[in-house]
C-alpha cells in the first residue's frame, strides 16, 4: 500500500491536480421484508411482477402509507453515523415519466430529509492508528426505488418488472470530503460495515442493495472546486475507486487540452474501465419537486427515538477501541471489526473466556486461513465460536501446545468433533512429567554427543536443535516450557 499520508495527486502537463470526491450511496433497507409505502415483499430474484401491490403498480386511487419499520431503520442508520435526526421531515414527489416509474413520480425527500448532518471516520491504513480521516455526511433521506425494464423478452417491445418498484432506499449523501480513490473506497467500505452492523442494509452490492453515484471534480491544489460529473449506479468498492481514478484523469486531460468539464451524468463501463456521458445538465429533467399531498409530515416522538437508540449495537469504531484496550494489536482489531460477522464471531469467542490476544491471533491467522482454504465464510464456519474457545483454552492451560492445536483444529474442521474429545481420544495431551521428559533428553544427548560438545564449545544456536529433537521424540506432546527448562539444566548446569 502506498503511503497513506502522502496526498493523492494527478500529475498533468501543467502540474499537479487534486481530485475532489463526494458519494451518494443508495442503500436498500433490507431489514424489512416489505416496501416503503406498501406491504409488498422485496425478496431478491423473485419472478418478475410477483412482488407488486396495487400501490406499487400505481393503480387509480391507491395511496402510500409509510412503513414504520423502514423509517425506524433509517433513523437507526442516521444515529450510527452520528447524524442529526430530524424530528419532523416530509416526503416530496420527484416527477418524471419513465416506464419503470408507475406513479409518474418517485416519492423522496428533497426539502426536509429524515436525517441531517453526520460523520464517518475512516482508517486509511489498517496498521496506522493515526491515518484516520473524517468524511462528512450531508443528509440521509428515504425514497422509493423504481422498477426495471427488460429489453430481452420480446423482439420489438420492452417489458417492465415492478418487483423493485417502491422498495425502500436510504440515500446517504456525503460531503465532497474525499481526495483519492483510496479514500472513496475506504469510506464506502466503512459505510457498508456500519450499515451491516446496524442491520438496516445487507450491503450486498452484487444484488443491488447498495450502489453509489460518484461525484468527481478536479482542481489545482488551493483552487475553488471544479465542475463535477456524476457517475451513476456504481456497484462495487473496486469500481468506485476505478471511477474516481479514471474520471479524475479524464478531467485533467480535458482541462489541460483547453476544454471545459461539462456538468453531466456519466455511466461506468466495467468491461472497458471507462466512463461515458449519459446526459448533460441541459437535458436534465425539471423534476417539479413538491410536498406529497398524500402523506402527512413525518413526526417522530422521543420514545420512538429512544427505542431506536437503545436498539443500536456496538459499532465498529467502539468495538475496535475496546479490542485494542484488551491488548489486541491495532491491525488485528481493525481486521476483526471490519465485518460484522467476524466481530460477532470474535465476541462470542471472547465470551467463551479465552485470552483476547491469543484469540485475536488465532482468528486472524488460523481461522481465516482455514476458511479461505475451504471456501467458507465465517458465518458458516464448521467450527463454532464455542468450539474454538474450547480449543484455545486447551492451549492456554498448557494441555496442548500451539503446534498440536493446529492439528486438533484440522481434525475439528474435518470431523466436527470437540477439541477436548479429540485430544482425549487421540492421546494428544501434552505432558509436563519431568521424569518422562528427562528420560528422552538423556537419550537425545547421548545419541548426539558430538553436537553436545559443539554446544559446550560455544555453538549455542544448537539449543533449538535439541529442543526440536526432544519434542519430536515426545511426539509433540511435551510441554515446551518444561523441555526448555530441563534441557538448560542438563546442558548448562
Amino acid at each position, binding site marked *: 500500500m502506498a503511503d497513506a499520508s502522502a496526498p493523492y495527486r494527478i500529475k498533468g502537463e501543467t502540474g499537479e491536480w487534486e481530485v475532489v470526491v463526494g458519494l451518494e450511496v443508495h442503500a436498500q433497507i433490507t431489514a424489512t421484508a416489505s416496501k416503503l409505502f406498501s406491504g409488498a415483499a422485496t425478496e431478491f430474484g423473485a419472478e418478475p411482477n410477483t412482488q407488486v401491490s396495487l400501490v406499487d403498480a400505481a*393503480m*387509480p*386511487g391507491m*395511496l402510500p402509507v409509510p412503513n414504520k419499520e423502514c423509517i425506524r431503520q433509517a433513523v437507526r442508520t442516521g444515529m450510527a453515523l452520528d447524524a442529526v435526526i430530524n424530528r419532523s421531515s416530509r416526503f416530496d414527489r420527484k416527477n418524471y415519466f419513465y*416506464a419503470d416509474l*408507475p406513479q*409518474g413520480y418517485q416519492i423522496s425527500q428533497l426539502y426536509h430529509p429524515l436525517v441531517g448532518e453526520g460523520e464517518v471516520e475512516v482508517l486509511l491504513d489498517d496498521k496506522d492508528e493515526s491515518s484516520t480521516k473524517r468524511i462528512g455526511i450531508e443528509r440521509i433521506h428515504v425514497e422509493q426505488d423504481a422498477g426495471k425494464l427488460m429489453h430481452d423478452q420480446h423482439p420489438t417491445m420492452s417489458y417492465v418488472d415492478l418487483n423493485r418498484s417502491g422498495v425502500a432506499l436510504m440515500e446517504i449523501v456525503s460531503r465532497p470530503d474525499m481526495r483519492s480513490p483510496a479514500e472513496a473506497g475506504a469510506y464506502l467500505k466503512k459505510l457498508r460495515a456500519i450499515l451491516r452492523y446496524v442491520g438496516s442494509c445487507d450491503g450486498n452490492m452484487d444484488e443491488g442493495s447498495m450502489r453509489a453515484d460518484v461525484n468527481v471534480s478536479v482542481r489545482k491544489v488551493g483552487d475553488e472546486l471544479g465542475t463535477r460529473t456524476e457517475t451513476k449506479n456504481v456497484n462495487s468498492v473496486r469500481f468506485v475507486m476505478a471511477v474516481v481514478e479514471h474520471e479524475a484523469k479524464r478531467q485533467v486531460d480535458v482541462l489541460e487540452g483547453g476544454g471545459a468539464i461539462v456538468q453531466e451524468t456519466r455511466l461506468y463501463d466495467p468491461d472497458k474501465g471507462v466512463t461515458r456521458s449519459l446526459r448533460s445538465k441541459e437535458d436534465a429533467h425539471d423534476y417539479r419537486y*413538491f410536498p406529497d399531498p*398524500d402523506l*402527512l409530515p413525518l413526526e417522530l416522538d422521543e420514545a420512538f427515538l429512544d427505542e431506536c437508540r437503545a436498539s443500536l449495537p456496538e459499532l465498529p469504531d467502539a468495538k475496535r477501541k475496546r479490542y485494542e484496550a484488551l491488548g489486541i494489536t491495532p491491525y488485528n482489531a481493525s481486521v476483526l471489526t471490519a465485518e460484522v460477522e467476524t466481530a460477532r464471531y470474535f465476541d462470542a469467542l471472547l465470551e467463551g473466556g479465552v485470552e483476547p490476544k491469543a484469540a485475536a491471533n488465532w482468528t486472524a491467522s488460523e481461522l481465516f486461513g482455514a476458511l479461505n482454504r475451504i471456501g467458507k465464510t465465517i458465518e458458516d464456519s464448521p467450527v463454532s465460536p464455542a468450539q474454538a474457545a474450547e480449543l484455545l483454552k486447551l492451549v492456554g492451560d498448557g494441555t496442548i501446545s500451539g503446534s498440536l492445536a493446529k492439528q486438533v483444529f484440522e481434525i475439528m474442521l474435518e470431523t466436527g468433533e470437540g477439541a477436548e474429545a479429540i485430544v482425549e481420544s487421540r492421546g494428544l495431551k501434552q505432558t509436563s512429567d519431568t521424569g518422562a521428559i528427562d528420560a528422552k533428553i538423556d537419550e537425545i544427548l547421548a545419541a548426539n554427543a558430538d553436537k553436545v560438545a559443539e554446544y559446550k564449545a560455544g555453538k549455542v544456536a544448537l539449543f533449538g536443535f535439541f529442543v526440536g529433537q526432544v519434542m519430536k521424540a515426545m511426539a509433540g506432546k511435551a510441554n515446551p516450557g518444561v523441555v526448555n527448562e530441563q534441557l538448560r539444566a542438563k546442558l548448562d548446569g
Partner: protein
Amino acid sequence: MTLTSKTIAELRDGFRGGEYSAREIAEAYNAAVAGARLLNAYTVETPEDALAAAAAADAARGQGGSLAGIPLGIKDLFATKGVDTTAGSHILKGFKPTYESTVTANLRKAGAGMLGKLNMDEFAMGSSNETSTYGPVLSPWRRQGSNVGLTPGGSSGGSAAAVSALIAPGATGTDTGGSIRQPAAFAGICGIKPTYGRCSRWGIVSFASSLDQAGPMARTVRDCAILLEAMAGFDPKDSTSLDLPVPQWEAKLSSDLKGKRVGIPKEYRIDSVPAEINALWDQGIEWLKDAGATPVEISLPHTKYALPTYYIIAPAEASSNLARYDGVRYGLREEGVKTLDDMYAATRAAGFGAEVKRRIMIGTYVLSAGFYDAYFTKAQRVRALIKQDFAKAFESCDVILTPTAPSAAFGIGETTDPLAMYLNDVFAVPASLAGLPAMSVPGGLDGQGLPLGLHLIGNELDEQTVLNAGLAIEERAGFTARPEKWW
C-alpha cells in the same frame, strides 16, 4: 307516494317496519334508472348489484346494516370492484378495478346496493358535467317555459341529477373545490363535504389529494347524515384519514339553534351576484334567527385570493396525480408510435379532454423550476392565511352562512370561458382550502323556477352544527319543488 319519491330515512323505516321489501325498492329504482337514460346521469347501470344487496337485506329481515335495502348511485370516481371505473375519462375507458374503494365498501357493509356509476366531469375537473367523456348530464330542471338543456353543475353532476330526478335516493359525491355543493344547489338537493380526512380517499381516483373529500348527496339533511355516518371512518390505508370515531350525526340532529352564532362573512357579499341570491341569503339569516341563532358579521379577509390559490394548488397536485395514466399498465394506450415518449404523448393527447389538459399544463407550469416559489409556495402560504381566517372567525361564531353558488344552473354550452366557469366555485373553494365541513341546502327557487342553495360552513370536525343549521333551514324553507318529468 311512490317508493322512489321517499327519502332514505323513510325507505329505511318502511323496510324495517315491513311495509315493503328491499327487493321492491331495488326494482322500483332499477326501473326508474332504465327510464331516465335521456338524462345521461348513469355511465353504467348495475341493476343486478342493487337486487343482490336487496336480497341480502331481505334475508337479514331487518337485522341488516343502517342502509339495508337502500340502493345508491356511485360517482364514477369511486373504484368499484369489477365495475367500470373511469373518472369520466376516455383514458380509463373499460378499466375495471380489482378492488373496492373504502367509502363504497363501507356503504356496502352498511347494506347498501349499487344502482350504477354516475356521470361526472372528467377527473372531477369541471362545474357543469360537460367535460365528461360520456357527454354532459342533463339537469332534470328546466327554466320556466324553456326547453333549453341545463347543466346539473359539477363535477358530481350525475349524482345531483340522479337524486333530483328520483333515479337514486342518494348518491356519493366528491368535493375538491365545490363539486358536491354546487351541483347540489343547482339540482335542489342537499350535499355535504365533511372535514378533510373524515372519509377515506383510498380507492377514489385522485384529483387534488390535499383537497379531495367524499361526501353524500341526498334529498334531505337527515339522509345526508345517515349516508355520511356510513361513509366516514378511519382508514389505515389513507395516511390523511382522521383516526377518530364517527359521530352519531343522525341521532343528534336538532334544528334548535339556541345559543348558536351564525357568521355572515362580509367578503361574500359580491355585487355581481344576482339580487335574488343575496335576497335568499338574507332570508336564510332570518330562518336561522327563527331557529334561535344569533347572526354576527365576520370577516374572512383573504377570501378574494381563494380562487386563484385553488387554481394553483389543485392543478399542481393534479398534474402529478394524473401522471400515472401513461398507457403502460392499464387504460388507453395509443399504439403505432416509435418511442416511449411518443407513446406517452399520443396516449395522453387522445385520452384526456381539453379541461384536464389545461389543468395538467397549469399544474406543470406552477411547479416548474423558476416558477415554483412564485406560484406554488406562495399559494401554500395564502392557503395557510385562509385557514387562519376561518380559525379566527370561528372564535366569534359557530357556523357560517353564505350562498352556495353565484348563479342558478346555466345552459349546456352557455359557459365557454374557463375562468367564468371557475367562478362557479367562488363561495365553495375557501372551505375546501381550509378542509372544513360545508353543506348546501336548497333554499328556494329563482325567478325562472330554478333551485338556489344556501351554504353552511362549520368548524373543523363540527359537521353536527352544519347539519343542524341545514335542518333548521330545511324545515323553514319548505323546499318541496321537484322538476317536472320531461325525460
